[in-house]
């Protein structure tokens, strides 16, 4: 990962099970699973296993394409009842079983074009359990800073907008 300055780790609201932090332009998720590394590797790289867990709750994932080798491409279609299908796609750039892989994680935004970037998964054996680290490159530290900082601001504005509309009604 290229970083131009010394990257500092900043906690981004870790939960009981998952450590979440940003480091430079990367957003990192870490979680230890009570499963051997070989099984984790299969869960991430065998097409028939992906629909069992990939994607937020309430969504279903269909694997359209998944060629797990450097230069191989992948394409998942994510469906959910409350939105249109979203296609995620990209290319595997580094594949080192069973310790991890890197792929590009892309999606198209209407009118904007492809968005996303490289994502690296590392699987470490820790006494029979496996520590999974996902590193997603979000662009620059500023983007992460701004996005997370403005999340709350945006929420506040919506509240005022509603208040203002209410007041306007008289």
């Amino acid at each position, binding site marked *: 990962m290229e970083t131009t300055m010394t990257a500092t780790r900043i906690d*981004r609201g870790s*939960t009981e*099970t*998952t450590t*979440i932090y940003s480091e430079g332009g990367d*957003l990192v*998720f870490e*979680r230890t*699973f*009570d*499963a051997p590394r070989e*099984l*984790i590797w299969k*869960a991430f790289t065998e097409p028939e*296993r992906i629909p*069992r*867990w*990939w*994607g*937020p*709750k309430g969504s279903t994932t269909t694997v359209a394409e998944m060629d797990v080798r450097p230069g191989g491409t992948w394409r998942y279609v994510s469906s959910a009842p409350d939105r249109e299908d979203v296609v995620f796609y990209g290319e595997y750039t580094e594949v080192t079983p069973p310790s991890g892989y890197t792929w590009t994680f892309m999606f198209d*935004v*209407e*009118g*904007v*074009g492809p*968005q996303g970037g490289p994502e690296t998964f590392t699987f470490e054996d820790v*006494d*029979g359990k496996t520590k*999974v680290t*996902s590193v*997603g490159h*979000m*662009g*620059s530290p*500023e*983007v*992460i*800073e*701004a*996005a*997370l*900082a*403005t*999340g*709350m*601001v*945006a929420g*506040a*504005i*919506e509240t005022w*907008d509603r208040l203002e509309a209410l007041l306007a009604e008289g």
Partner: protein
Amino acid sequence: MQAPDTLSATFAALADPTRRAILARLADGEASVKDLAAPFEMSQPAISKHLRVLERAGLIEQGRRAQWRPRRLRAGPLRDIADWVGQYRRHWEESFDRLDAYLRDLQESKEHEDGDDDDRHTNRPG
């Protein structure tokens, strides 16, 4: 969905700490250029320049009511950016929960399999 150029304009506008500070100040309510310039050691024209960048990015707008044209925040582009990182975060938090449950299922059913079929597997530690 916002216009094509807006997302990159939004990112560019947010890259500057002074502009982020201005947005944070506006999060407390609308303010005049003079009010916004006060916390910074900057001239009003310098602040106005930042305000124009924020305005072009669609992050703020000028109020219509008062003569002093207070600036206020606009929710749209901010929400779009926050959404993207928020959704990415939600994706991994929830996928990890689902993966955890899936792995438990697998290992439970595997234990049964192992018990039924001792010839196929050698005993593993742990």
